[in-house]
Structure formats: C-alpha cells, structure tokens
C-alpha cells in the first residue's frame, strides 16, 4: 500500500506541471495581452509602458517561469482591475462554493445510488426502464433552464421567491440554505444521472458474482444479501466516480451561481472572464485544476484502501 501511495503521489507533480503549461500556452495563444486590455483607450506609448511594467516583453519561457515561481510561493498575483490579490478574493469566496459543492455531492451520491440500486433490483423491469430513461434526462437537462424554472415557477404559482441577498452559512443559516439548497439540487441533476447509471451497472455486475449466490445458498435474507454483500461491493466504483464529479461541479457552479446570484468561485471566474482579467482567469483555472487533481489523488488512495486489488495496478 505504501508503495502504491507513493507512486500515485509522485505522479501528481508531473501532471500539475503539464497542467500549468497547458493553461499558460492557452492564454498565450489568445490574441492580445494584458497591456492591450488595460490600456484599451490609451496611447501606444502608454500601452508599451504597461507592457514593460508587467514584464510582458520578456521571453515567453521567462514569463512562464515567473508565473509558476510566484504560484509556488503561494502568490496568486493581483487582479488587473481591482488590484486586490487574487488569494484574498478566492479565500473569501471559497467557503460558499465549497458548501454548494458538498451539498450537491451529497444529493448526487444519495439520490443517484438509490436510483441505481432500485434499477438493478429488477433489471429490464418497468421501474428500471423508466428510471434509466430519466437518468439520461438528468444528463441532458440544461442547468440554466432548470435553474430558471426553479426560480420562476414557485414565484408565479405560490408567490415564493428565495431571498434576494446572499448571506453566509454562519451569519444567517436560514437565508443561506434557502438559496443554496435549491441551487445544489439543480447542480446535482447531471451527476445523479451519471452516478445512477454507474451504480446500476456495478450492482448488476456484483449480483452475478459467486459470493452472492453463496450468501443466498447459506439462507441469508434477501435484504441482507443485497445490502451486506451487494451494496458494499457495488459502492466502490461509485467512490471513484464521485471524485470525477468535482470538475463538473466547478463547471456547473459557474452557471448556477450566476442564476441564483451566489458570490462564489464560479461567479468570480465569470466576472474575471467578462472583464478579460486574464491573470485571474489563468490562476482560477490553475487553482480549480489543482483541487480536481487533489481530489482524484484522494479518491485513488481511498480506492486503494477499500479495494486491495487496486494497489497492484
């Protein structure tokens, strides 16, 4: 296990290095640079001065190294417009998105695996066919449309609207939850589709195993067989897929936070992009990719703990 963990951990570094190269290259390929953006109406001499000040005339590899160097020192740089350090804004907004993500993840895991288990209990039965079709619907629903429906329909039918201003979980839990619970539910829909499909497939796989037949032959109750022997093994791949949900959560949060007016990371990224604040955008991409990589690392390590067969791979 130790060997597996170390090998898996070491793989983290080259991957994150490549991620940084991809993000940097992507933004270098884009037309225009930071100086063009700040000095939109300024004279060419002024733009040149800004370029000099931001070290944009240095060779590209030097610029890359300077960027990575400051990231390693924990310095995420400053916004081109507000001048505030990116880290201040990120730390302010992180708890909100974290809360949204965790809640959505819980919905995804609980509802998704329940649907998957019901589906697998009687494969090709009526419930299974209906649930499978709806799982695909979950994958296909546009988040922004469902978000709009969740806001507009209760307002028109019952005159109910969620609070207009966002409050933190600690300062005003009631207001906070009235905004975040529906948002997390909307965000969870596509994940529910993915998890329930996987849960069904793995449960069907597990059900055909010899140890399930043995358990039944011993005379165990069907529920015991299903939950003690089936579910325990069926949940393992679901753990992995939950880890893979993290990037989807960040992508979806950009839209959900926009609709529900939640001041989280997605909202921050969206503002940065709209203002073409490229350093913030670059850092946010890097920051989110790091979280994604760390969660997949955690998942792989947990996986190794749950399922010893994985360690040798």
């Amino acid at each position, binding site marked *: 296990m130790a060997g597996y963990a170390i090998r898996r951990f070491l793989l983290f570094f*080259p*991957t*994150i290095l*490549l*991620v940084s190269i*991809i*993000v940097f290259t*992507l*933004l270098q*390929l*884009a*037309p225009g640079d930071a100086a063009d953006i700040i000095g939109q109406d300024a004279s060419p001499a002024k733009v040149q001065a800004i370029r000099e000040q931001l070290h944009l005339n240095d060779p590209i590899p030097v610029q890359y190294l300077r960027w990575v160097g400051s990231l390693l020192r924990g310095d995420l740089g400053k916004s081109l417009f507000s001048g505030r350090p990116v880290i201040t804004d990120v730390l302010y907004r992180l708890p909100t998105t974290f809360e949204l993500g965790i809640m959505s993840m819980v919905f995804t895991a609980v509802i998704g695996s329940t649907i998957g288990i019901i589906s697998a209990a009687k494969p090709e039965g009526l419930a299974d066919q209906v649930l499978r*079709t709806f799982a*695909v*619907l979950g*994958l*296909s*629903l*546009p*988040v*922004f*449309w469902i978000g*709009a*429906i969740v*806001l*507009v*329909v209760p*307002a*028109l039918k019952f005159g109910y609207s969620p609070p207009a201003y966002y409050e933190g979980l600690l300062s005003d839990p009631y207001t906070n939850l009235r905004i975040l619970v529906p948002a997390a539910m909307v965000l969870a829909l596509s994940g529910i589709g*993915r998890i329930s*499909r*996987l849960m*069904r*497939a*793995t449960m069907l796989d597990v059900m055909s195993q010899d140890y399930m037949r043995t358990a039944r032959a011993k005379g165990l109750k069907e529920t015991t067989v299903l939950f003690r022997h089936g579910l325990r093994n069926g949940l393992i791949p679901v753990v992995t897929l939950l880890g893979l949900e*993290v*990037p*989807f959560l*960040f*992508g*979806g949060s*950009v*839209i959900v936070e*926009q*609709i529900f007016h939640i001041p989280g990371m997605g909202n921050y*990224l*969206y503002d940065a*992009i*709209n203002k*073409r604040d*490229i350093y913030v*955008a*670059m850092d*946010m*991409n890097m920051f*989110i*990719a790091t979280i*994604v*990589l760390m969660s*997949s690392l955690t998942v792989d390590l947990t996986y190794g703990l749950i399922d010893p067969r994985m360690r040798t791979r």
Partner: protein
Amino acid sequence: MMQQSVAEPAAVTFTMPARKSRAQRIMRILIRKRLMTFSFFILIVIGLASALAPWISPYSYVATDTANTLSSPTRLHWFGSDVVGADTFARTLYGGQVAFMVGGFASVISLGMALAMGLTTVQIGGWFDILLQRVVDAWLSLPFFVVVLTAVAMFGPGLWTVILILGVSRSFGLSRVIRGSALREQGMVYIEAAESIGATKLRIALRHVLPNLLPVVIVLITLVFAQSILAEAFLSFLGWGVPPPKPSWGSMLSGQVIQYMYQQPWLGVFPGVALTATVWAANLAGDGLRDILDPRLRGQNV
C-alpha cells in the same frame, strides 16, 4: 413389470432459417429498440425543422413586432414573442441551426483528432505513447467547462471559435477511449498476420484497425454531439457563445430573459424544451447504438 420404452426418435426436420436481408435486419433492430428509434425520429424532426427554417418560419429571426412584445403563443406568434417582439418560433428554429452545426462539427472534429492521436500513439508506442498519455492525463484533470469558457472568452466569441474549442478540448479525453480500443485490436491475430506479410504501420492503422473502430466511433460521435450542443448552450447562456443577432437556445434564455420570464413564462418554454429534447434524444440514441454496436462500452461514462 417394468417395461423400458425407448421413445421413438422424432423425425428431425431441419430447415435453415431464411437469411434476412440487410433492410429486414435493420427493421428488426429498430422495432426492438423502440426508444432509440423514437430518439432518432425526434432528432430528424428537429434537425429538419431547423434546416428548413427559412421556408417554415413566417418571420425572420431579427424581425421585431413592436406591437406584440412578450406575447403568449397566439395565431400570430405560434411560440409567443420576446421582449423586443421577435418571434420565438423563428428564433427557436434558427437556434436549432446553431445547435446542430455545433453538435455536428464539434463531434466530427473531436473524433477526427482523437482517432489521429489514438491510432498514432498505438502504432508508435514507446516514449511517444508515455508522453502523450501524460498530456492526456493533465488535460483530463482540467475542468472541461471552465477551460472552454476561458478559452472562448480569450479568443472572442463566434460560431467557429466555439466549434473549434469544443472539438479540440474534447478530443484528448476521447483519444484515451480510441487508444484503448485500438490496443485491443492490436493484440488480434489478424494484425500479426498483416505485420508478417510486411504491411506498414500506416497501412495497419488505416486498413485494419480503423474499420474495426467504427462502432466505437459512431457511438462516441452521438454522445459528443449531445455534449457539444449542451456546452454551446451553456456558453451562449453566459454570453460567450454564438454572438447576436444569430439566436441560440442558450442565448434565448440569457441575461435579462429570466427577469422577463416572471412576466411572460412562455419565453423560457420553447428554447428549453427544444434544447432538452435534442440532447436527451441524442444521448438515448447513443445509448441504444452502444448496446447494439459495442456492448463492451456499456455502463461506461464517456
């Protein structure tokens, strides 16, 4: 007393089942896979309606009827009209053109690139494969939609920017699937046979491996078609997709539109239903095709 009776062997009549024609076999699959057939039907209907928009729609997508803004569905405006009085029916149809363009081209581009990467990496192998797979790993750890949004914003919105960026960013992950299938083919005896008679690597990749990957490719194209349409709608919703005046199902719900939906809920109905129906149908069609063409992919999320 016991009498052993041996049953007379029944006269064995053996008739070869009549060989079914290709059309008959396809018909049987279509009947057995009703959901898939229905999905294809939906896709064809929406696709045709969008393609024929100039002939079907009574209005252009920019024409405004200032006397009837925010109207409900009426005989004049079948799907209602928006805040400037543009006809929602026309805009929904023309929005379908954008959706099908993006879905079609982005999926073909990403599959083309994925095939090129997957086949090359399997044929060259060695350090090239190791290196490329690390790049794919890195790319897969980037949050897809966040990167796409950033890239589109930096390169500037536009139909072809969106198509290219969606196609390219999706291709890395798909190349992993193609590589897996190509590696499986590579281990087959017929590849060894081809190698033994001196076939070049290029010939093996194109003449022997590629045709056998066709089922996987067809399934993936359908699923990527659905994902690209959804991604374009998300981008357009955020204002970074296909720029106005060209309507897209995403941009028809973006910006202030949600505010106007409190006054006129019909605004949100048709673009949302069209988008959901298209993506749902494409996903279901992809699932159906997967069951028929490549059972090994079943239960995988690609």
